[in-house]
């Protein structure tokens, strides 16, 4: 990797005062990297995100930002608490990405407006920009939220399960966007719920589970052996997958 390092985590212990969730989390993230975070429920995926956002200091270890911590860390969370009946148009939802930098009484300026329009274009939401949120499908809403994430214009982007409840076409379009962010030199950290094609777009993976963490490239990290070791798969699931895998290999020969 010739890109400069954005973030390195060195032996992090994550959790809350009375509860350690995961220990010895070590990974590196350079500009242009796409890192997948995989793990079972409660393995510390969300805790890691909260720590990276700055809302939760690590219990031990160090989080280093060689280029200084970015002013904005873009974040797209899960939509459990999202209110899609709020009277606001897609364009304004995207503009929300620029609000924190605006200060209290300032209006959105020309440069910012151009950023919003470009984000709407690139996410394919320009035609629905004037629609209220409650008329959107889940896929359209996720595109609009990706537009908001782009308007945040951050060097580091955190996505928490971005493809849950999204159809294949939308997922493919959003993955193309993520690739383009990486090409622009932004780093992306994606929490993934399922092992899927999404991993092809990641150049590194962090496997969390059983209080431990494993970091490396996706092919070497997310092996059936490691997935069982970190309680992501049961042994019988892993055996089945391995059997299928061997069968396919043999077929190709």
């Amino acid at each position, binding site marked *: 990797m010739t890109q400069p390092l954005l973030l390195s985590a060195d032996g992090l212990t994550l959790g809350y005062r009375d509860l350690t969730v995961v220990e010895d989390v070590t990974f590196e993230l350079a500009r242009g990297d796409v890192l997948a975070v995989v793990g079972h429920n409660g393995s510390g995926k969300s805790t890691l995100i909260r720590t990276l956002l700055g*809302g939760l200091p690590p219990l031990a270890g160090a989080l280093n930002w060689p280029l200084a911590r970015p002013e904005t860390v873009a974040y797209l969370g899960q939509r459990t*608490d*999202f209110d899609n009946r709020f*009277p606001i148009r897609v364009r304004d939802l995207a503009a929300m990405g620029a609000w924190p930098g605006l200060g209290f009484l300032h209006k959105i300026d020309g440069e910012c407006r151009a950023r919003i329009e470009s984000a709407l274009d690139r996410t394919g939401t320009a035609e629905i920009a004037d629609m209220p949120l409650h008329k959107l499908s889940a896929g359209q809403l996720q595109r609009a939220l990706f537009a908001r994430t782009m308007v945040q214009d951050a060097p580091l982007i955190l996505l928490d399960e971005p*493809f849950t409840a999204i159809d294949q076409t939308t997922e493919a379009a959003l993955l193309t966007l993520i690739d383009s962010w990486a090409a622009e030199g932004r780093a992306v950290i994606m929490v993934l*719920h*399922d092992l899927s*094609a999404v991993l092809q777009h990641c150049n590194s993976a962090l496997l969390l589970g059983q209080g431990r963490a494993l970091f490396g490239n996706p092919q070497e990290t997310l092996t059936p052996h490691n997935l069982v070791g970190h309680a992501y798969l049961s042994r019988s699931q892993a055996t089945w997958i391995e059997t299928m895998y061997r069968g396919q290999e043999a077929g190709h020969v």
Partner: protein
Amino acid sequence: MFEWFEYAFMVRALVATSVMSFAIAPVGAFLVLRRLSLAGEAMAHAIVPGIVIAFVVSGLSVVSMIIGGLTAGIAVAALTSLLARMTIIREDASLASLYLIALALGIFVLSAAGSAVPLKSFLFGSILGIDNETLVLIGATATITLVSFAFILRPLITNTIDPVFHESQTKYPGLATQWFMFLVVLNLLGAFKALGTLMAVGLMILPATAARYWASTITSYLLTTFVFALLSCWIGLIVSFHLPDVPSGPAIVLVAAVFFFISLILAPQGFHATARLNPACRWKQSDGDANVISKTGEKIHEKTF
């Protein structure tokens, strides 16, 4: 037709309710948007003991009413969020318990203090007997509310739509919402004086729910809410002027109710539009589907390894 204009108390009432509408409209609108409509009603009762004790201690003084009401309101709000965070009981149940305690306490003290207490004006307000102090209270409340909204509008919108996102973007995510709850209590005090404890929230909630059927952007929503609140006050006051036995509080709220029903039937997001709503549960459903696909192993095996 316009003979009411010659009466000073009517002009005062019109001025007071017009100024009040400016502040109460955005507060009511955000109560509705933040799903706190019923919490607003509960808060209106929660401030009663503070007001009653202030009344018993120092009579009909607006300043002591503000101090008593704010203290009681903020105490109940703070205790509610404390109980919801620290114990198993959720926010609605905590608030319900505390406001009932507060209301009982208020009525207990009111009765124990005995005579001389104008129970009817506690229940229904005294919009036609507004004194200078109350006018100042309503004017100051409106000023504080509108200036505050210039600062908290964006954080409040963000927090209402997407609290998780808002928390990630600010160091003090609770600041805007707590200030908003303070504004709610402040506006309840003004409305309490004018409309009484039973009707105070009516002018907050009904114009806001009626307007919700029409508006699809936040700006048009806030404006429509204000127009409905203002018209409810004017028409309600004139109706109660012509029907001397009718207290003005219920008259104003009933006019707001008429706006509500008209909007329900005619507005673009009223009855006939329900079929177009995307229910929130749709996500949950497809969430389940996605899991089923991955658990078959088909996709995992083909594309990952």
